[in-house]
Protein backbone atom coordinates (compact mmCIF):
# COMPACT_ATOMS: atom_id res chain seq x y z
CA UNK A 1 0.00 0.00 0.00
CA UNK A 2 1.33 3.44 -0.91
CA UNK A 3 2.33 5.78 1.91
CA UNK A 4 1.84 8.95 -0.11
CA UNK A 5 -1.54 10.27 1.07
CA UNK A 6 -2.44 11.74 -2.33
CA UNK A 7 -1.66 8.43 -4.07
CA UNK A 8 -3.60 6.57 -1.39
CA UNK A 9 -6.56 8.85 -2.02
CA UNK A 10 -6.51 7.96 -5.73
CA UNK A 11 -6.25 4.26 -4.85
CA UNK A 12 -9.31 4.54 -2.64
CA UNK A 13 -11.29 6.52 -5.22
CA UNK A 14 -10.51 3.86 -7.85
CA UNK A 15 -11.60 1.15 -5.43
CA UNK A 16 -14.78 3.05 -4.54
CA UNK A 17 -15.53 3.37 -8.27
CA UNK A 18 -15.42 -0.39 -8.78
CA UNK A 19 -16.50 -2.08 -5.57
CA UNK A 20 -17.77 -1.56 -2.06
CA UNK A 21 -15.32 -0.04 0.40
CA UNK A 22 -14.82 -1.52 3.84
CA UNK A 23 -15.94 0.75 6.69
CA UNK A 24 -12.30 1.49 7.51
CA UNK A 25 -11.57 2.38 3.89
CA UNK A 26 -14.66 4.58 3.75
CA UNK A 27 -13.51 6.50 6.83
CA UNK A 28 -10.00 6.84 5.41
CA UNK A 29 -11.41 8.11 2.12
CA UNK A 30 -13.50 10.71 3.91
CA UNK A 31 -10.47 11.90 5.86
CA UNK A 32 -8.26 12.13 2.78
CA UNK A 33 -10.90 13.98 0.78
CA UNK A 34 -11.04 16.53 3.59
CA UNK A 35 -7.24 16.75 3.46
CA UNK A 36 -7.20 17.26 -0.33
CA UNK A 37 -10.26 19.37 -1.13
CA UNK A 38 -8.99 20.00 -4.67
CA UNK A 39 -9.50 16.32 -5.54
CA UNK A 40 -12.76 15.74 -7.37
CA UNK A 41 -14.39 12.78 -5.56
CA UNK A 42 -16.39 11.82 -8.66
CA UNK A 43 -13.68 11.69 -11.27
CA UNK A 44 -12.99 7.93 -11.18
CA UNK A 45 -16.60 7.01 -10.50
CA UNK A 46 -17.48 8.87 -13.71
CA UNK A 47 -14.77 6.98 -15.61
CA UNK A 48 -16.15 3.70 -14.25
CA UNK A 49 -19.66 4.77 -15.25
CA UNK A 50 -18.47 5.49 -18.78
CA UNK A 51 -16.88 2.04 -18.95
CA UNK A 52 -20.12 0.51 -17.71
CA UNK A 53 -22.08 2.29 -20.45
CA UNK A 54 -19.57 1.07 -23.03
CA UNK A 55 -19.90 -2.54 -21.92
CA UNK A 56 -23.63 -2.60 -21.26
CA UNK A 57 -24.80 -3.14 -24.81
CA UNK A 58 -28.50 -3.31 -25.46
CA UNK A 59 -30.44 -2.83 -22.25
CA UNK A 60 -33.93 -3.83 -21.26
CA UNK A 61 -36.78 -1.33 -21.63
CA UNK A 62 -38.27 0.02 -18.42
CA UNK A 63 -41.44 -1.93 -17.57
CA UNK A 64 -44.49 0.34 -18.20
CA UNK A 65 -45.88 -0.26 -14.70
CA UNK A 66 -42.58 0.86 -13.16
CA UNK A 67 -42.52 3.93 -15.41
CA UNK A 68 -46.01 4.83 -14.16
CA UNK A 69 -44.84 4.34 -10.55
CA UNK A 70 -41.86 6.62 -11.17
CA UNK A 71 -44.13 9.33 -12.57
CA UNK A 72 -46.28 9.10 -9.44
CA UNK A 73 -43.12 9.20 -7.28
CA UNK A 74 -42.05 12.32 -9.15
CA UNK A 75 -45.37 14.07 -8.56
CA UNK A 76 -45.14 13.34 -4.82
CA UNK A 77 -41.45 14.31 -4.67
CA UNK A 78 -41.93 17.67 -6.34
CA UNK A 79 -45.09 18.40 -4.39
CA UNK A 80 -43.28 17.91 -1.10
CA UNK A 81 -39.89 19.34 -2.03
CA UNK A 82 -40.87 22.59 -3.70
CA UNK A 83 -42.49 25.60 -2.09
CA UNK A 84 -45.73 26.72 -3.68
CA UNK A 85 -45.08 29.72 -5.92
CA UNK A 86 -46.15 32.96 -4.30
CA UNK A 87 -48.83 35.05 -6.01
CA UNK A 88 -47.50 37.39 -8.66
CA UNK A 89 -48.48 40.43 -6.60
CA UNK A 90 -46.26 39.22 -3.76
CA UNK A 91 -43.38 38.08 -5.90
CA UNK A 92 -43.32 41.31 -7.80
CA UNK A 93 -42.46 43.06 -4.56
CA UNK A 94 -39.70 40.69 -3.71
CA UNK A 95 -38.25 39.58 -6.98
CA UNK A 96 -39.05 42.04 -9.69
CA UNK A 97 -36.39 44.35 -10.99
CA UNK A 98 -39.10 46.94 -11.55
CA UNK A 99 -39.11 48.29 -8.00
CA UNK A 100 -35.34 48.55 -7.91
CA UNK A 101 -35.72 50.45 -11.16
CA UNK A 102 -38.16 52.77 -9.41
CA UNK A 103 -35.52 53.15 -6.73
CA UNK A 104 -33.00 54.00 -9.40
CA UNK A 105 -35.35 56.67 -10.67
CA UNK A 106 -35.47 58.25 -7.21
CA UNK A 107 -31.71 57.92 -6.90
CA UNK A 108 -31.27 59.50 -10.31
CA UNK A 109 -33.43 62.41 -9.18
CA UNK A 110 -31.37 62.84 -6.01
CA UNK A 111 -28.20 62.67 -8.04
CA UNK A 112 -29.52 65.42 -10.27
CA UNK A 113 -30.26 67.62 -7.24
CA UNK A 114 -26.82 66.94 -5.79
CA UNK A 115 -25.20 67.65 -9.12
CA UNK A 116 -27.08 70.96 -9.31
CA UNK A 117 -26.15 71.91 -5.71
CA UNK A 118 -22.50 71.23 -6.43
CA UNK A 119 -22.50 73.22 -9.62
CA UNK A 120 -20.18 74.30 -11.15
CA UNK A 121 -17.97 71.46 -9.83
CA UNK A 122 -17.74 68.71 -12.47
CA UNK A 123 -19.61 65.53 -11.56
CA UNK A 124 -17.93 62.30 -12.66
CA UNK A 125 -20.09 60.56 -15.22
CA UNK A 126 -21.47 57.14 -14.31
CA UNK A 127 -19.84 54.39 -16.33
CA UNK A 128 -21.89 53.27 -19.27
CA UNK A 129 -23.23 49.76 -19.51
CA UNK A 130 -20.62 49.03 -22.16
CA UNK A 131 -17.87 50.18 -19.80
CA UNK A 132 -19.24 48.09 -16.93
CA UNK A 133 -19.46 45.09 -19.23
CA UNK A 134 -15.89 45.58 -20.41
CA UNK A 135 -14.66 45.89 -16.81
CA UNK A 136 -16.43 42.70 -15.80
CA UNK A 137 -14.99 40.82 -18.78
CA UNK A 138 -11.49 41.80 -17.73
CA UNK A 139 -11.98 41.11 -14.01
CA UNK A 140 -10.13 38.04 -12.69
CA UNK A 141 -12.44 35.07 -12.15
CA UNK A 142 -15.17 36.16 -14.54
CA UNK A 143 -16.68 33.16 -16.30
CA UNK A 144 -18.75 33.08 -19.46
CA UNK A 145 -21.84 30.94 -20.08
CA UNK A 146 -23.44 30.75 -23.51
CA UNK A 147 -26.81 29.96 -25.05
CA UNK A 148 -25.81 30.14 -28.66
CA UNK A 149 -29.21 29.70 -30.29
CA UNK A 150 -30.29 33.07 -28.88
CA UNK A 151 -26.87 34.63 -29.36
CA UNK A 152 -26.93 35.06 -25.60
CA UNK A 153 -24.24 35.10 -22.94
CA UNK A 154 -23.97 35.47 -19.19
CA UNK A 155 -20.78 36.81 -17.66
CA UNK A 156 -20.56 36.00 -13.96
CA UNK A 157 -17.97 36.91 -11.38
CA UNK A 158 -18.35 34.85 -8.20
CA UNK A 159 -16.15 37.07 -6.09
CA UNK A 160 -18.00 40.26 -7.00
CA UNK A 161 -21.37 38.43 -7.11
CA UNK A 162 -22.04 40.44 -10.25
CA UNK A 163 -22.81 39.56 -13.79
CA UNK A 164 -24.25 40.68 -17.10
CA UNK A 165 -26.75 38.98 -19.32
CA UNK A 166 -26.66 39.88 -23.00
CA UNK A 167 -29.28 38.56 -25.37
CA UNK A 168 -29.21 38.95 -29.12
CA UNK A 169 -32.39 37.25 -30.18
CA UNK A 170 -35.42 36.53 -27.99
CA UNK A 171 -39.02 37.27 -28.91
CA UNK A 172 -40.37 40.29 -27.00
CA UNK A 173 -43.20 39.51 -24.57
CA UNK A 174 -46.26 41.43 -23.49
CA UNK A 175 -44.62 42.93 -20.39
CA UNK A 176 -47.95 43.42 -18.65
CA UNK A 177 -48.52 39.66 -18.65
CA UNK A 178 -45.21 37.84 -19.06
CA UNK A 179 -41.54 38.39 -18.39
CA UNK A 180 -38.39 36.41 -18.78
CA UNK A 181 -36.75 35.33 -15.52
CA UNK A 182 -33.11 34.40 -15.03
CA UNK A 183 -32.05 31.58 -12.68
CA UNK A 184 -28.71 30.38 -11.39
CA UNK A 185 -28.12 26.71 -10.62
CA UNK A 186 -25.66 26.86 -7.73
CA UNK A 187 -23.63 23.72 -6.98
CA UNK A 188 -23.02 25.20 -3.55
CA UNK A 189 -26.72 24.84 -2.76
CA UNK A 190 -27.19 21.19 -3.58
CA UNK A 191 -30.73 19.96 -3.33
CA UNK A 192 -32.10 23.49 -3.08
CA UNK A 193 -33.95 25.62 -5.55
CA UNK A 194 -32.08 27.58 -8.20
CA UNK A 195 -31.30 31.14 -7.23
CA UNK A 196 -33.57 33.83 -8.62
CA UNK A 197 -31.58 36.39 -10.60
CA UNK A 198 -34.49 38.63 -11.52
CA UNK A 199 -36.94 39.25 -14.33
CA UNK A 200 -36.18 41.15 -17.50
CA UNK A 201 -37.65 42.29 -20.79
CA UNK A 202 -36.10 42.43 -24.24
CA UNK A 203 -36.31 45.36 -26.64
CA UNK A 204 -38.55 45.14 -29.71
CA UNK A 205 -35.52 43.96 -31.71
CA UNK A 206 -35.09 41.01 -29.33
CA UNK A 207 -31.96 42.28 -27.60
CA UNK A 208 -31.21 43.01 -23.97
CA UNK A 209 -28.22 43.85 -21.80
CA UNK A 210 -29.12 43.33 -18.16
CA UNK A 211 -27.00 43.43 -14.99
CA UNK A 212 -27.30 40.16 -13.06
CA UNK A 213 -27.84 40.37 -9.31
CA UNK A 214 -28.59 37.14 -7.52
CA UNK A 215 -31.18 37.17 -4.75
CA UNK A 216 -28.86 35.00 -2.62
CA UNK A 217 -25.11 34.54 -2.49
CA UNK A 218 -24.06 32.14 -5.24
CA UNK A 219 -21.12 29.94 -4.32
CA UNK A 220 -20.56 27.94 -7.49
CA UNK A 221 -22.65 28.87 -10.52
CA UNK A 222 -22.94 25.84 -12.77
CA UNK A 223 -25.67 26.75 -15.22
CA UNK A 224 -27.83 29.78 -15.93
CA UNK A 225 -31.31 29.42 -17.31
CA UNK A 226 -34.07 31.68 -18.57
CA UNK A 227 -37.72 30.81 -18.12
CA UNK A 228 -40.89 32.60 -19.19
CA UNK A 229 -43.01 33.55 -16.18
CA UNK A 230 -45.91 35.76 -15.18
CA UNK A 231 -45.02 39.47 -15.03
CA UNK A 232 -43.08 40.19 -11.86
CA UNK A 233 -41.57 36.74 -11.66
CA UNK A 234 -42.06 33.79 -9.36
CA UNK A 235 -40.22 32.22 -6.44
CA UNK A 236 -40.09 28.75 -7.97
CA UNK A 237 -40.20 28.45 -11.71
CA UNK A 238 -43.09 26.73 -13.42
CA UNK A 239 -42.78 28.41 -16.75
CA UNK A 240 -41.23 26.89 -19.85
CA UNK A 241 -37.45 26.97 -20.04
CA UNK A 242 -36.40 29.01 -23.03
CA UNK A 243 -32.63 29.19 -22.65
CA UNK A 244 -29.94 27.18 -20.90
CA UNK A 245 -26.51 28.78 -20.57
CA UNK A 246 -23.65 26.32 -20.39
CA UNK A 247 -20.08 27.18 -19.38
CA UNK A 248 -18.01 28.28 -22.34
CA UNK A 249 -14.90 26.22 -23.00
CA UNK A 250 -11.65 27.92 -22.07
Amino acid at each position, binding site marked *: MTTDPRERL*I*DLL*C*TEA*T*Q*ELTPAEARELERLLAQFPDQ*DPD*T*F*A*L*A*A*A*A*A*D*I*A*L*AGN*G*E*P*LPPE*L*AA*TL*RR*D*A*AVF*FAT*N*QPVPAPASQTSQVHSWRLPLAGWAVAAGLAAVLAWSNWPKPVPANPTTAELLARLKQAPGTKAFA*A*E*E*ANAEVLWNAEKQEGFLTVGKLPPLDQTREQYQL*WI*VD*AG*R*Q*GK*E*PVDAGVFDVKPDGTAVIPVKAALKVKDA*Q*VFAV*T*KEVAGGVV*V*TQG*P*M*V*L*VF*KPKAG
Partner: protein
Amino acid sequence: MKAVEGTEALATECLLPRIALGDQRAVTECISRYGGLVWSLARRFLGNPADAEDAVQDVFVDLWKNAAKFDPTKSAEPTFVTMVTRRRLIDRKRRTARVPASAPLDMDIPGKPDNRERLTEISDDAARAATALGELKDDQRRVIGMAIYQGFTHEEIAAATGMPLGTVKTHIRRGLIRMRGLLGGGEE
Protein backbone atom coordinates in the same frame (compact mmCIF):
# COMPACT_ATOMS: atom_id res chain seq x y z
CA MET B 1 -46.63 26.47 -23.40
CA LYS B 2 -43.98 26.08 -25.97
CA ALA B 3 -40.29 26.82 -25.78
CA VAL B 4 -38.98 29.66 -27.89
CA GLU B 5 -38.50 28.60 -31.46
CA GLY B 6 -35.04 27.23 -32.06
CA THR B 7 -34.31 26.52 -28.43
CA GLU B 8 -35.99 23.14 -28.15
CA ALA B 9 -32.88 21.18 -29.11
CA LEU B 10 -30.76 22.70 -26.40
CA ALA B 11 -33.54 22.62 -23.84
CA THR B 12 -33.96 18.87 -24.38
CA GLU B 13 -30.27 18.11 -24.64
CA CYS B 14 -29.65 17.98 -20.89
CA LEU B 15 -32.55 17.24 -18.59
CA LEU B 16 -30.98 17.49 -15.15
CA PRO B 17 -30.45 21.29 -15.17
CA ARG B 18 -34.13 21.63 -16.05
CA ILE B 19 -35.09 19.26 -13.24
CA ALA B 20 -32.93 21.30 -10.87
CA LEU B 21 -35.12 24.24 -11.83
CA GLY B 22 -38.24 22.27 -10.96
CA ASP B 23 -39.34 21.66 -14.55
CA GLN B 24 -41.62 18.63 -14.14
CA ARG B 25 -41.88 18.00 -17.86
CA ALA B 26 -38.17 17.30 -17.77
CA VAL B 27 -38.84 14.69 -15.09
CA THR B 28 -41.13 12.77 -17.43
CA GLU B 29 -38.54 13.00 -20.19
CA CYS B 30 -35.86 11.86 -17.74
CA ILE B 31 -37.84 8.73 -16.92
CA SER B 32 -38.32 8.00 -20.63
CA ARG B 33 -34.72 8.70 -21.57
CA TYR B 34 -32.90 6.99 -18.71
CA GLY B 35 -35.45 4.51 -17.39
CA GLY B 36 -34.13 1.66 -19.54
CA LEU B 37 -30.54 2.41 -18.58
CA VAL B 38 -31.24 2.52 -14.83
CA TRP B 39 -33.49 -0.54 -15.00
CA SER B 40 -30.87 -2.56 -16.91
CA LEU B 41 -28.17 -1.63 -14.41
CA ALA B 42 -30.42 -2.55 -11.48
CA ARG B 43 -31.34 -5.90 -13.04
CA ARG B 44 -27.69 -6.69 -13.66
CA PHE B 45 -26.56 -5.63 -10.18
CA LEU B 46 -29.39 -7.09 -8.16
CA GLY B 47 -30.87 -9.84 -10.27
CA ASN B 48 -34.15 -10.05 -8.42
CA PRO B 49 -36.81 -7.98 -10.28
CA ALA B 50 -38.54 -6.88 -7.06
CA ASP B 51 -35.26 -5.59 -5.60
CA ALA B 52 -34.46 -3.94 -8.91
CA GLU B 53 -37.81 -2.14 -8.97
CA ASP B 54 -37.24 -0.74 -5.47
CA ALA B 55 -33.72 0.30 -6.41
CA VAL B 56 -34.86 2.07 -9.58
CA GLN B 57 -37.31 4.14 -7.53
CA ASP B 58 -34.52 5.06 -5.10
CA VAL B 59 -32.18 5.96 -7.96
CA PHE B 60 -34.64 8.35 -9.59
CA VAL B 61 -35.30 10.13 -6.30
CA ASP B 62 -31.50 10.45 -5.94
CA LEU B 63 -31.33 11.91 -9.44
CA TRP B 64 -34.01 14.49 -8.74
CA LYS B 65 -32.37 15.47 -5.45
CA ASN B 66 -28.92 15.70 -7.01
CA ALA B 67 -29.86 17.15 -10.38
CA ALA B 68 -28.07 20.41 -9.57
CA LYS B 69 -24.84 18.48 -9.01
CA PHE B 70 -24.64 17.51 -12.66
CA ASP B 71 -21.80 19.41 -14.29
CA PRO B 72 -21.86 19.22 -18.10
CA THR B 73 -18.18 20.19 -18.20
CA LYS B 74 -17.23 17.05 -16.25
CA SER B 75 -19.26 14.34 -17.95
CA ALA B 76 -22.06 13.53 -20.33
CA GLU B 77 -25.44 13.34 -18.66
CA PRO B 78 -25.88 9.55 -19.17
CA THR B 79 -22.50 9.04 -17.49
CA PHE B 80 -23.62 11.07 -14.48
CA VAL B 81 -26.89 9.12 -14.35
CA THR B 82 -24.93 5.86 -14.49
CA MET B 83 -22.60 7.03 -11.71
CA VAL B 84 -25.51 7.92 -9.41
CA THR B 85 -27.13 4.58 -10.24
CA ARG B 86 -24.00 2.53 -9.61
CA ARG B 87 -23.41 4.23 -6.26
CA ARG B 88 -26.97 3.58 -5.15
CA LEU B 89 -26.80 -0.05 -6.29
CA ILE B 90 -23.43 -0.69 -4.63
CA ASP B 91 -24.81 0.82 -1.44
CA ARG B 92 -27.96 -1.28 -1.70
CA LYS B 93 -25.95 -4.46 -2.14
CA ARG B 94 -23.89 -3.54 0.91
CA ARG B 95 -26.99 -2.90 3.02
CA THR B 96 -28.81 -6.04 1.96
CA ALA B 97 -25.63 -8.14 1.85
CA ARG B 98 -27.05 -10.08 -1.04
CA VAL B 99 -25.38 -11.32 -4.16
CA PRO B 100 -26.99 -11.42 -7.57
CA ALA B 101 -29.31 -14.40 -7.57
CA SER B 102 -31.08 -14.81 -10.86
CA ALA B 103 -28.37 -13.43 -13.12
CA PRO B 104 -25.28 -15.61 -12.87
CA LEU B 105 -22.01 -13.90 -13.63
CA ASP B 106 -20.80 -14.32 -17.16
CA MET B 107 -17.33 -15.76 -16.88
CA ASP B 108 -16.41 -14.66 -20.40
CA ILE B 109 -13.68 -12.09 -20.22
CA PRO B 110 -14.77 -8.91 -22.00
CA GLY B 111 -12.93 -8.11 -25.17
CA LYS B 112 -12.97 -4.84 -27.06
CA PRO B 113 -16.47 -3.36 -27.04
CA ASP B 114 -18.27 -4.36 -30.20
CA ASN B 115 -20.87 -2.67 -32.34
CA ARG B 116 -23.83 -4.40 -30.74
CA GLU B 117 -26.98 -2.40 -30.36
CA ARG B 118 -27.07 -0.09 -27.42
CA LEU B 119 -29.75 1.78 -25.57
CA THR B 120 -30.80 4.20 -28.25
CA GLU B 121 -31.22 7.06 -25.81
CA ILE B 122 -27.55 7.04 -24.92
CA SER B 123 -26.02 5.56 -28.08
CA ASP B 124 -23.69 8.48 -28.80
CA ASP B 125 -22.25 8.51 -25.30
CA ALA B 126 -21.95 4.73 -25.33
CA ALA B 127 -20.05 4.89 -28.62
CA ARG B 128 -17.62 7.47 -27.23
CA ALA B 129 -17.09 5.44 -24.06
CA ALA B 130 -16.61 2.26 -26.11
CA THR B 131 -13.97 3.97 -28.21
CA ALA B 132 -12.17 5.07 -25.03
CA LEU B 133 -12.42 1.61 -23.52
CA GLY B 134 -11.03 0.15 -26.74
CA GLU B 135 -7.93 2.30 -26.29
CA LEU B 136 -7.00 0.60 -23.01
CA LYS B 137 -4.41 -2.11 -22.81
CA ASP B 138 -5.91 -5.60 -23.02
CA ASP B 139 -5.23 -6.44 -19.37
CA GLN B 140 -6.65 -3.12 -18.19
CA ARG B 141 -9.83 -3.56 -20.25
CA ARG B 142 -10.19 -7.15 -19.14
CA VAL B 143 -9.87 -6.37 -15.43
CA ILE B 144 -12.08 -3.27 -15.62
CA GLY B 145 -14.73 -5.26 -17.45
CA MET B 146 -14.70 -7.95 -14.78
CA ALA B 147 -14.91 -5.39 -11.97
CA ILE B 148 -17.41 -2.97 -13.44
CA TYR B 149 -19.61 -5.02 -15.72
CA GLN B 150 -19.46 -8.46 -14.15
CA GLY B 151 -19.30 -7.31 -10.54
CA PHE B 152 -16.24 -9.26 -9.42
CA THR B 153 -14.34 -7.97 -6.41
CA HIS B 154 -10.65 -7.29 -6.89
CA GLU B 155 -9.85 -10.43 -4.92
CA GLU B 156 -12.18 -12.49 -7.10
CA ILE B 157 -10.53 -11.13 -10.24
CA ALA B 158 -7.11 -12.05 -8.86
CA ALA B 159 -8.35 -15.57 -8.13
CA ALA B 160 -10.02 -15.94 -11.54
CA THR B 161 -7.11 -14.64 -13.60
CA GLY B 162 -4.14 -15.73 -11.50
CA MET B 163 -2.88 -12.13 -11.34
CA PRO B 164 -1.49 -10.86 -8.04
CA LEU B 165 -4.02 -8.64 -6.22
CA GLY B 166 -1.70 -5.65 -6.49
CA THR B 167 -1.53 -6.09 -10.27
CA VAL B 168 -5.33 -6.19 -10.48
CA LYS B 169 -5.57 -2.94 -8.53
CA THR B 170 -2.88 -1.33 -10.68
CA HIS B 171 -4.69 -2.29 -13.91
CA ILE B 172 -7.92 -0.83 -12.57
CA ARG B 173 -6.26 2.37 -11.43
CA ARG B 174 -4.31 2.91 -14.65
CA GLY B 175 -7.30 1.94 -16.75
CA LEU B 176 -9.61 4.41 -15.01
CA ILE B 177 -7.04 7.18 -15.22
CA ARG B 178 -6.67 6.49 -18.94
CA MET B 179 -10.46 6.41 -19.44
CA ARG B 180 -10.73 9.71 -17.62
CA GLY B 181 -8.06 11.23 -19.83
CA LEU B 182 -9.58 9.89 -23.05
CA LEU B 183 -13.00 11.19 -22.12
CA GLY B 184 -11.64 14.61 -21.33
CA GLY B 185 -11.86 14.46 -17.56
CA GLY B 186 -8.23 15.01 -16.63
CA GLU B 187 -4.61 14.17 -17.19
CA GLU B 188 -3.73 10.71 -18.38
